[in-house]
């Protein structure tokens, strides 16, 4: 059920490009960025790295000292030419950290607040998708945190935006609610046909949602690339610290083992993984995250072991990071898939490993983290 709330826009297919510079006291934001026109871009960084400042500039809520901002073929901001499209004309939806629902409107009034009069987006469909149809007559003050976030997401979507910004929309939710909404947002962002920028300092959220990753540090953009490409880069291991050197694999669900509660997915056509059971439908694509330290290496196939997953891989690259001099970081390749692994330097030497060598990657099923 793909949802496309935009019915009349050609700039959908074009991307966002920006260059901004802003000084606020001692903080200095300096960013230059081009983002893909489709999919979800995660903006990752510690608090104070400038993620939210960047988002506010894109939304038109703040104005940088100098900068240029272009979405598709529209110029939203050009300080040199004194051009600045005000926030209410940018058609950029924002889901804020706090839901920011209007307390004097009912849920329905909040949802319809930004709805364009002509060519109305599919109200019923989006409300259904968000699972908030039973809340329409409630006042925002009576909603739970999770419900309020859903309404806020719906309100932004129904304003028919050409770009959706989400600023840590899961902040302040407890574990279970957070997981639920995270899964929901991941699903939603794959169904809507507009680019999404998702700001977070939580690696798990980013891994679950983002296709593209922008890494920010003290007001600067350190790297911007496909999520998995960045995860495979040794030099970013520390900066992506929270990610704890992990890899993302995406595969198609082919079988559920209801007795042992396990799920089998296929990677490409040749290899399979066995994971802790999920509720994903057969045939659907899911992502799993596996930490580098959860992968073991064997030089030959292993029998009689609890490692359920044995993948034939090639060692593509290796390094020793100064921060962890006891271990060797490996990048493994299996077809088009890449995996990060790490093992002690001692093992590396004793097993006679080298770049180009074909080995077996061993992964326990329980170590997978379905997203």
């Amino acid at each position, binding site marked *: 059920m793909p949802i496309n709330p935009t019915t009349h826009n050609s700039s959908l297919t074009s991307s966002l490009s920006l260059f901004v510079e802003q000084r606020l006291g001692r903080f200095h934001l300096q960013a230059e960025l081009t983002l893909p026109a489709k999919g979800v871009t995660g903006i990752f960084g510690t608090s104070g790295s400038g993620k939210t400042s960047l988002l506010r500039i894109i939304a*038109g809520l703040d104005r940088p000292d100098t900068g240029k901002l272009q979405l598709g073929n529209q110029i939203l901001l050009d300080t040199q030419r004194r051009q600045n499209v005000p926030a*209410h004309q940018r058609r950029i939806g924002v889901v804020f950290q*706090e839901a920011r629902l209007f307390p004097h*409107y009912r849920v*329905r009034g909040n949802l*319809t*607040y*930004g709805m*364009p009069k002509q060519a109305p987006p599919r109200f019923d469909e989006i409300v259904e998708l968000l699972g908030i149809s039973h809340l329409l*007559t409630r006042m925002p003050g009576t909603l739970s945190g999770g419900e309020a976030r859903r309404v806020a997401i719906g309100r932004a979507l129904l304003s028919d935006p050409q770009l959706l910004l989400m600023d840590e929309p899961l902040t302040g939710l407890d574990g279970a609610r957070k997981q639920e909404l995270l899964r929901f947002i991941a699903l939603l962002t794959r169904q809507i046909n507009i680019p999404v920028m998702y700001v977070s300092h939580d690696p798990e959220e980013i891994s679950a949602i983002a296709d593209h990753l922008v890494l920010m540090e003290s007001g600067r953009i350190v790297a911007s690339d496909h999520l998995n490409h960045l995860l495979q880069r040794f030099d970013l291991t520390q900066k992506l610290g929270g990610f704890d050197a992990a890899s993302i694999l995406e595969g198609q669900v082919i079988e559920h083992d209801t007795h042992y509660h396990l799920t089998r997915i296929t990677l490409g056509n040749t290899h399979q993984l066995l994971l802790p059971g999920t509720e994903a439908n057969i045939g659907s694509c899911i992502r799993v995250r596996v930490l580098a330290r959860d992968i073991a290496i064997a030089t030959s196939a292993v029998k009689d072991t609890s490692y359920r997953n044995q993948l034939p891989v090639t060692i593509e690259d290796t390094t020793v990071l100064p921060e962890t001099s006891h271990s060797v970081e490996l990048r493994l390749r299996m077809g088009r898939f890449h995996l990060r692994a790490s093992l002690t330097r001692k093992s590396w030497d004793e097993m006679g490993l080298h770049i180009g060598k074909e080995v077996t990657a061993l992964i326990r099923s329980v170590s997978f983290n379905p997203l």
Partner: protein
Amino acid sequence: MTLSPAEWEAIRLSLLIGLAAVAWILPPGIAVAWWLARHQFRGKALVDGLIHLPLVLPPVVVGYLLLVGLGKQGVIGQWLYSSLGVSLPFTWQGAAVASGVMAFPLLVRALRLSLEAVDPKLEAAASTLGANRRRVFTTITLPLAVPGLLTGTVLAFARALSEFGATITFASNIPGETRTLPLALYTLIQTPGQETAATRLCILAIIIALLSLIASEWLARRTQQRLQERDAY
């Protein structure tokens, strides 16, 4: 107790002048309150002080200043008379101007506090949903400040009803034109043997004040309800 024609006249004039005063200060009051609540500028304290001046000045001074400014010989008064043929002193409209000026700071004060309490984050959210500044103000800012607006309006109305010093100075004490309840009461007190009539006016003043308090309470509750029911179709 049946009311004498003079008493009816005083009540009618009081309500007319009170309502007219509130009506003319509401638009500038809302604008000034919003400006003070949402903007920082040089000399803000001075503007703030000027607005509050009628609260602390003797009302007679305000009345005299109005006379100087808006009287037929006054700077503005001269222009008003020559170009529009309007003369304010010694008319009920003049009384409404005088009591409005006296009530202005009370309206601005209450409204400003309420406007300052409206979260600018909600206004920002509204603007990302496509609302221009005017729509943000009329649908978010002002509705959320309604409690302050009502309080301010009632306070201003009560102040205008009871206004004495500025009114008598600027608009004089003319029966049937500017003799409101307080002025009528003052006239009776000055006249020997009118104690009973004075007491009657006293009681009337109390009743009107109570009624307006009750009405404002009812209005506040009703507005709150209607705000909540809006968009609940």
